[in-house]
């Protein structure tokens, strides 16, 4: 078996036993990037030299018996909206195409502390605004399962590189599904933790109250392990939860005996692909077989989630992206005076979708409209949050599709509203600040992976991972081992 197709867990145990070196693992990934990324386009920046150097240092540590963690030497890729000191931090935008981050994001520090060589930075929808990575201003990323199709977004590069065998795992960010949807489209496990579980320091903000760093991996165990590596409190993020976070890996094989699994009342009437519906049925049956109790639950505000989400996300984005004015860093287009410079810089620096969201966000915060839009959206958000809280009195975890359909073709969703609708199942978890994950379960008629989503109560990641562990076993039994495409 080739190293680049292995899971992080497998690599870690081979490193531990001295069967391979970190340099071997990193080289294998780099070779694969060289061979394959031309076609996939996952990476915006490949850090070959730095990754090899980090791998050598890791090998030295392993030889001297001072490994920093179980994952010391296991390479990783990160989304290009995470700050890595000395490396450009483009966010998929012309605005920051040449901006070099002068500091490390908290999660990057965590990766370094665990000894993981960073392979490079991955493509994304501009400022994480999109569901297909088609809105990257810098590069096209293709779905390794079918290069005519999108990898999902906004963390499309991170998903694609793991699916293509270019990295064993990767970090992304999830504001409304930006980890789970591409994980679903690329046949991966994608975890969005509880809001505040992972520090946002150094994650370039899109919508601050919704953003959360998440993980991409080929297995549930890898996802749990990576989550353990990055979770925990951070004094630099006031919204981070003040404790270290449990060890998630142990939850994966715990089983679901007695676990209460909820499915949405009437989900069968949703417009989902028949194959997605079939996957849902199979998953429900599998969980029951494994000892879970499956009940139907209702969340009648779910239909309001998309509107609510976009109002809040756009409002926050309009403010978060205001700092890109050409004064201090990033693109500057000179003008006749400061205001003219702002205008020209922002006109040239931002793409169409980003401008659309900034304008709508500015509008909903304006005097006279605030109450009707932003304030109303916050009220609905509070209601959605409490409906979830109510629901989690009755069930431990909610099972839904991640997306109604599998990966779509480039250019297929021209209407923005149609694109926004892709996030139907994923945005509620962001609005409520809950942990949610997507895992591959079944294939559609076109042979593309289907993703199912598990959502748990706040800080109940272990429960979600328990259910995921059981479903993953079923999928592996019928399809053989997970791996890169």
């Amino acid at each position, binding site marked *: 078996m080739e190293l680049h197709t292995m899971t992080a867990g497998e690599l870690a145990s081979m490193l531990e036993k001295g069967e391979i070196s970190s340099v071997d693992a990193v080289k294998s990934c780099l070779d694969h990037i060289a061979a394959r990324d031309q076609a996939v386009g996952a990476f915006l920046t490949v850090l070959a030299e730095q990754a090899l150097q980090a791998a050598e240092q890791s090998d030295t540590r392993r030889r001297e018996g001072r490994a920093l963690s179980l994952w010391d030497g296991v390479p990783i890729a990160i989304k290009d*909206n*995470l*700050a890595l000191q000395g490396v450009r*931090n483009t*966010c998929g935008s012309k605005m*920051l195409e040449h*901006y070099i*981050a*002068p*500091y490390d*994001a908290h999660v990057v520090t965590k990766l370094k502390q665990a000894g993981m060589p960073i392979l490079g930075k991955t493509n994304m929808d501009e400022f994480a605004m999109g569901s297909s990575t088609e809105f990257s201003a810098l590069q096209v990323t293709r779905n390794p399962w079918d290069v005519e199709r999108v990898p999902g977004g906004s963390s499309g590069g991170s998903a694609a590189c793991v699916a293509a065998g270019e990295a064993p795992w990767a970090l992304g960010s999830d504001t409304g599904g930006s980890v789970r949807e591409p994980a679903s489209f690329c046949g991966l496990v994608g975890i969005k933790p509880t809001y505040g579980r992972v520090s*946002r*320091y*150094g*994650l*370039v*903000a899109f*919508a*601050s*109250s919704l953003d959360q760093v998440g993980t991409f991996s080929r297995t549930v165990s890898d996802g749990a392990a990576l989550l353990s590596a990055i979770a925990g409190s951070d*004094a*630099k*993020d*006031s*919204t981070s939860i003040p404790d270290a976070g449990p060890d998630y890996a142990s939850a994966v094989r715990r089983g679901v005996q007695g676990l209460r699994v909820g499915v949405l009342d009437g989900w069968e009437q949703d417009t989902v692909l028949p194959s997605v519906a079939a996957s849902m049925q199979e998953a429900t049956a599998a969980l029951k077989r494994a000892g879970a109790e499956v009940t139907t639950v209702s969340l009648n505000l779910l239909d309001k989630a998309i509107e609510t989400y976009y109002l809040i996300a756009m*409002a*926050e984005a*309009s*403010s978060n992206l*205001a*700092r890109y*004015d050409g*004064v*201090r*860093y990033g693109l500057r287009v000179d003008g006749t005076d*400061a*205001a003219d410079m*702002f205008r020209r810089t922002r006109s040239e620096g931002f793409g169409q979708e980003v401008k659309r969201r900034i304008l709508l966000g*500015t509008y909903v*915060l*304006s*005097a006279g409209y*605030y109450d009707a839009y*932003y304030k109303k959206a916050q009220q609905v958000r509070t209601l959605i949050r409490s409906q979830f809280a109510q629901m989690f009195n009755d069930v431990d975890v909610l099972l839904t599709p991640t997306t109604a359909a599998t990966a779509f073709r480039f250019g297929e969703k021209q209407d923005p509203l149609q694109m926004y609708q892709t996030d139907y199942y994923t945005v509620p978890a962001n609005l409520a600040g809950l942990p949610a994950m997507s895992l591959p379960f079944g294939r559609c008629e076109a042979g593309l992976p289907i993703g199912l989503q598990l959502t748990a109560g706040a800080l109940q990641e272990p429960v979600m991972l328990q259910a995921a562990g059981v479903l993953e076993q079923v999928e592996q039994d019928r399809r053989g081992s997970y791996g890169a495409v």
Partner: protein
Amino acid sequence: MAQYEVVIGLEIHAELLTKTKIFCACTTAFGGHANSHCCPVCLGLPGALPVLNEKAVEYGIKAGLALDCRIPERCKFDRKNYFYPDLPKAYQISQYDEPLCLGGSVTCETETGLQTIGVTRVHLEEEAGKSVHSGDNILGSEYSSMDYNRAGIPLIEIVTEPDLRSPQDAKAFLEHLKRVLQYIEVSDCKMEEGSLRCDANVSLRPLGVQELGTKVEIKNLNSFRSVERALQHEVTRQSQLYEAKQQVEQETRAWDEARGVTVSMRSKEESHDYRYFPEPDIPPVHINSLWVEDLRSGLPELPLSRKERLQRQYGLTTYEAEFLVSQRSWSDFFEAVVQEFDQEKMVVNWLMGDVSRVLNAREETLPQSQLDVSGLVELLRLIDTGTISGSQAKAVLEAVCATGQPPADVVQTLGMQQISDEDQLAAMVDAVIAQYPGEAQRCREGDAKLIGFFVGQIMKGSQGKANPKMVNELLRKKLKL
């Protein structure tokens, strides 16, 4: 004019004296190379997040308590969105509808007597950076440079009710407020360095009318004098408009110090829509009421009540007490000295006279000076016991301030102990009388003016060390005057 009532409200911004900025660990020190007191947070770099400095909250609460405000159990931060090169994030983190302090009042002395001015609110926010223009002003400049050292220094904004009735009152209030903030040591309130700034809202209304007239906001008031002058100018301008039956436009005007006029900056229609919304990066702040009570009990006596007490307790005049409370360091110093040396009048005279003069000449403040409480006590005792004369004491004070040596040591080094030994002085007097027999004779015959001549000779002979009072008495006795 007489038929109009002037209505003024102020918005005051004061920088807080915390050591670090409000949302990051950068220093708040004044000066430094441009952009040397900055980090990803205060530069608003992509991905950086604010973390609230607890000291800034503490200082804000202290200010609120000194202004008799209520401290709600919860406050929150909001974003105030606008584009300006000095604003790194293109929004200022401020407080909109749930400020730190609410509903206070301040009583201060004005020309028309004691007045109580309502305080609507006090809230926390962050300071912006500074533009440095290549030319004299922004319009005449080819380019501007930005310095973000100041960006993120904590500010409090104090908003008053429209309770002020004249430009003079507004100035008196502002001076009092500055004194209060300095007393509680939350701000140094240096208008010239920009650590205290003031905007004013002013309107006129016919006497007896309750409804407020159209208000005009005046910005760019950089000194106490400009506050008074600008308001005076604006009152005149508005009353002329009323007289001419013309509309007063609701607008923002800037004070042009050089020309002594206010000029229109923007009309109501052009006013910013700041699109305030709750700051998602900072959770609402819960204020522990025990902490507030702790801070309340730690507040020092405020200037107005201290002034009254100083007059009452030490029998000082209004003028003297006013001098002492003008800066907390002076009244603290005074009270510490009189603990050790109970001649209050003498103490206050020395402080107002020679100590002030010497410090002014040295361009030092009392806390910066090498003169400490025990130094002044020692100096006053040396005078009081007649060890040195008043004029010698001035020289000693200057030396103490220059070198930091204790007064007794200075007296020793300068060899200026006064000769007050009666036998020693009598011998000197006898010697001089013997040296000038003719003058002595004329003196005995009633030419009393010659006493001065003898005193002069003795002072010269003793290099100024003879106790002049005693020499005078001895001469009069010996010459039988």
